C-alpha cells in the first residue's frame, strides 16, 4: 500500500495534424521522455494503462501494440475509455493500483490519432457521445451541438454574450502561442473569433477545440519508489462523477452535475475549502472543449458563484496574475484535444507548472504549491477533478 502517489516523469508529443507519424511512433514521442525524466527502465514498470477512445484510428489493441513497440511485454495493461475524460480515467486506474498496493510503478499513456479518419467521419462519430438513439439517431446532435445547448441556456440565464465566450478563445490562444507543443501557436483577436462561421449556434469555428493527433505520458510511483526521484509532484486527491446520457434527463443546462460532484469530493479529500478553492491553488486546467464550458467550469469548480464565471473572463481574472490562471498551456482550444491524451496532458502541465518548468511567458507563480485539473468526458457524462501538489499532502 502507498498512501501517497507521485508523478516522477512526464512526456508530451507535439499536438496537431500529425500525418508524419503512425500510432506507436506518436506514443513513443511521449513514452521516451517520460521514462527518461523519471529515470526508470521498462523493467521497472509494473503495469501500464492506455487511454484511447479510438474508432477513428486504425489500431485497436493498443496496449499490446505498445507492449511490442516499446518493450513493455509481458507486464499487465489495460485500455481505458471515458470519452474526452479518457486520459484522466487512465490516471485513475494507475493511481488506485498504486494506492491499493497492486503496483509500485505505472506508466500512463494517453493517445489519440483522430486525423487517420476524414473530418466528416470524425464529426459523425463524436456526435454519438451522447444518447445514441434519443439524441443522435433522430435529431443529429453533434458534439458542438450538445455544448451549444448549454451555452444558449447560460446566455439566457446569466446575460452572457457570444463576445464573452470569445474572450475564452482569445485567452487560450494567447497562451497557446507560448506553448511549443500546442496545435495552434498563434494569438487570435476578438474580431477573428467573432467571425460568423457558425458550427452549432451560438458556437462559431473559433469557439471549438480542433480535431487533434497527440500523445502524453506520465510515470506514477509509490511513495517508497518515488523517494529518490529528483523531480516529482504528488496526486493529492481525485473526484469522479457521472452524469446522465440524455441531456433531457438533467435539471439544468448551465452547469454539469458530474463536475460539481467530482470537485466537491476532490476538494474534501485534499482539505480545500469548497467556498474559496482558488486560495489553495496556483492555477488550473479546465476542460475547454468549447469556450462556454470553460466559464461553466469556473462555476462548477467554485472559482466563481453561479453566473459569476462570465465576470471572471471579462475581468481577465483567469490570466496569469489574476484570481486563478486557467489553461495557460492553451487549453483544449489552442493546444488541441486528442481525446485520450487530454487528461494526461493536463497532468503533464501540472507537473511543469508546479516544478516551474513551463515555457517563458506562461509560467504561473507557484506559491501555494497546488494545481487543479478538470477533465470532462462527453457533455458532463463523466468528470474527473484531480488535485496535484508539489509537496506530499499533509493529512
Amino acid at each position, binding site marked *: 500500500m502507498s498512501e501517497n502517489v507521485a508523478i516522477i516523469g512526464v512526456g508530451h508529443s507535439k499536438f496537431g495534424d500529425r*500525418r508524419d507519424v503512425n500510432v506507436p511512433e506518436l506514443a513513443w514521442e511521449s513514452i521516451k521522455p517520460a521514462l527518461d525524466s523519471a529515470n526508470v527502465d521498462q523493467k521497472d514498470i509494473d503495469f501500464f494503462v492506455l487511454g484511447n477512445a479510438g474508432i477513428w484510428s486504425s489500431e485497436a489493441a493498443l496496449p499490446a501494440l505498445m507492449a511490442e513497440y516499446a518493450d513493455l511485454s509481458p507486464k499487465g495493461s489495460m485500455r481505458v475509455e471515458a470519452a474526452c475524460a479518457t486520459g484522466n480515467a487512465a490516471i485513475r486506474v494507475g493511481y488506485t493500483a498504486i494506492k491499493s498496493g497492486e503496483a509500485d510503478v505505472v506508466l500512463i499513456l494517453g493517445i489519440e490519432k483522430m486525423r487517420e479518419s476524414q473530418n466528416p467521419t470524425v464529426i459523425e462519430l463524436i456526435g454519438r457521445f451522447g444518447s445514441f438513439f434519443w439524441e443522435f439517431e433522430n435529431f443529429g446532435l453533434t458534439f458542438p451541438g450538445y455544448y451549444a445547448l448549454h451555452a444558449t441556456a447560460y446566455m439566457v440565464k446569466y446575460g452572457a454574450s457570444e463576445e464573452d465566450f470569445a474572450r475564452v478563445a482569445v485567452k487560450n490562444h494567447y497562451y497557446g502561442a507560448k506553448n511549443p507543443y500546442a496545435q495552434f501557436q498563434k494569438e487570435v483577436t476578438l474580431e477573428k473569433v467573432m467571425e460568423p462561421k457558425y458550427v452549432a449556434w451560438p458556437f462559431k469555428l473559433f469557439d471549438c477545440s480542433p480535431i487533434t493527433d497527440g500523445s502524453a505520458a506520465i510515470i506514477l510511483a509509490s511513495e517508497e519508489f518515488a523517494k529518490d526521484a529528483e523531480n516529482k509532484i504528488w496526486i493529492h486527491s481525485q473526484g469522479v462523477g457521472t452524469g446522465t446520457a440524455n441531456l433531457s434527463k438533467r435539471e439544468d443546462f448551465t452547469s454539469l452535475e458530474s463536475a460539481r460532484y467530482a470537485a466537491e469530493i476532490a476538494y474534501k479529500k485534499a482539505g480545500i475549502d469548497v467556498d474559496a478553492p482558488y486560495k489553495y491553488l496556483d492555477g488550473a486546467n479546465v476542460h475547454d472543449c468549447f469556450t462556454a464550458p470553460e466559464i461553466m467550469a469556473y462555476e462548477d469548480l467554485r472559482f466563481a458563484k453561479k453566473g459569476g464565471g462570465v465576470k471572471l473572463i471579462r475581468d481577465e481574472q483567469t490570466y496569469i496574475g489574476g484570481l486563478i490562471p486557467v489553461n495557460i498551456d492553451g487549453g483544449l482550444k489552442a493546444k488541441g484535444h486528442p481525446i485520450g491524451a487530454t487528461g494526461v496532458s493536463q497532468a503533464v502541465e501540472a507537473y511543469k507548472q508546479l516544478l516551474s518548468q513551463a515555457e517563458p511567458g506562461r509560467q504561473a507563480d507557484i506559491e501555494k504549491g497546488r494545481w487543479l485539473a478538470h477533465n470532462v468526458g462527453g457533455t458532463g457524462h463523466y468528470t474527473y477533478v484531480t488535485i496535484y501538489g508539489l509537496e506530499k499532502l499533509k493529512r
Partner: protein
Amino acid sequence: MKEVIEKQIKEFGLPVMTDEKSGALQWLDLRELNLRYIISIENIKPFFEGLKEGKLLTTKCKHCGRIFFPPQRDCPSCRISDMEWVELSREGTLETLTVIFVKPPSFGSYDPYTVAIAKLDDGPRITAWLKGDPRKAKPGMRVRLEISKREKEGYMMYELVPVE
C-alpha cells in the same frame, strides 16, 4: 476516395499518397467499414406504435408512479418491471436550443436544423427538432409537441412547434 485509391494504385503500384500539407507519405486504407446498428425496441414497442397512431406514449411505473422519458422497461426505484403506457403532455416550455450548421454526413441531406430541449407540463423533458425560424425562438416560450413525417427520410418522428 475509392477513385483516388484506384488512381494511386494504377500510378504507383501501391495505395499511397503524399499529404499535401505535411509532405508525409500516407497509406490509403482499402478496408472501408460500413457501420449500421440493429437496435432492439421490442420492450418499448408501444412508443413506436403510438407514433404511427399520432400518440406520444411513455412509461409510468405502476408501483411508484415515476414517469420515464425516454420510455424504459424497468423501474430502478422499485426494481419492478411493471409499467403502464401513458400519454405525454403535448405542451411545455422551451428551455434551450442550438442550430446545427456543421452536420454529420448522415444528416447531410437536411438544411441546418434546430435542436431544442423543452420541459413538458407533466414533468419530463424532451429533446427534439424545433420547427420554424430559430431567430424567433427563445427559451421560456411555449411549445407544442407534434408528430410529423421526416421530409427527407419519410418516417414518423416527434418535433417541437412554437405556440403562436
